[in-house]
């Protein structure tokens, strides 16, 4: 697993039983914790050549131009969800086996984020490299999604 400290994670999983959370969420289990991830698994990002694009071809209001670069991570779908002011991009991807993982794209290198035995999705990152996302334990399809946060070290 690409998580540095299963022990720390285990402790935090213990918080999932927090009664106050359960009360707030009407039975849904929710966990919020901070942990330092050591990102051990990585591969190069596949990014195509920049494509210049003018918005004039659609009903654009306001004059602006962007350069678009595809972000392709893994063999299947890619879903970037957030970008911080340093340009670090986070999101999720699906591999050929339809497994879902979180990713961090930083300085051209993709690091996979996978919470143990879970479908992991990363939703956001801030300037302090703190990540937020959710995960769905794969050992029980009836388990609700849970939230997590952590810090990209």
């Amino acid at each position, binding site marked *: 697993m690409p998580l540095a400290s299963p022990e720390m994670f285990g402790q935090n999983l213990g918080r999932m039983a927090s009664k106050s959370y359960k009360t707030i969420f009407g039975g849904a289990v929710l966990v919020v914790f901070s942990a330092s991830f050591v990102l051990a698994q990585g591969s190069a990002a596949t990014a195509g050549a920049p494509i210049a694009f003018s918005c004039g071809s659609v009903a654009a209001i306001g004059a602006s131009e962007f350069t678009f670069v595809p972000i392709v991570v893994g063999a299947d779908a890619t879903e*970037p969800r957030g*970008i911080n002011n340093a340009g670090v991009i986070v999101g999720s991807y699906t591999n050929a086996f339809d497994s879902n993982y979180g990713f961090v794209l930083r300085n051209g290198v993709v690091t996979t984020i996978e919470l143990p035995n879970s479908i992991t999705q990363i939703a956001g990152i801030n300037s302090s490299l703190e990540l937020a996302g959710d995960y769905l334990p794969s050992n029980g399809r009836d388990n609700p999604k849970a939230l997590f946060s952590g810090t990209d070290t």
Partner: protein
Amino acid sequence: MVGSYYLESGYQGFLYQGGIFTTLSFPGAAGTLAEGINNQGQIVGVWYDSNLTDYPFLYSDGQFQQLPVPGCENSGAFGINNHGDIVGFCSDPELGLGFLYQNGAFLLFSFPGATNTLAFGINDSGQIVGQYYPPGVGEPQGFLATPVP
């Protein structure tokens, strides 16, 4: 941090700040999803009516505001940066576009050649990330859009 949870009655948004959860429900909505927040605490998201039509909102200074995107049947907001620039999607049954709301105006855009484009996040440099659907039966892929100076 913002997010959403699902009850039998529909989605509810939430704000998690200082160890406290606060529910976010757009007035009169059948459901609310909180999708993005900036350092000023401004929150953007999607609310939907009983017909499951989506609309974007901005929650700022304790007040919900609608963000009607011109010409869009379905739309929603996903990201906001510290300048108050907002990104999201605008779609009808045949075409989906990303939008950027900046300086009081909407800019609609598409990844080149894509049938559907969604913008999820924007940073303070105006860089936008999102997802596009290639023509045909391709799986959705990501994009980074950087403003040309």
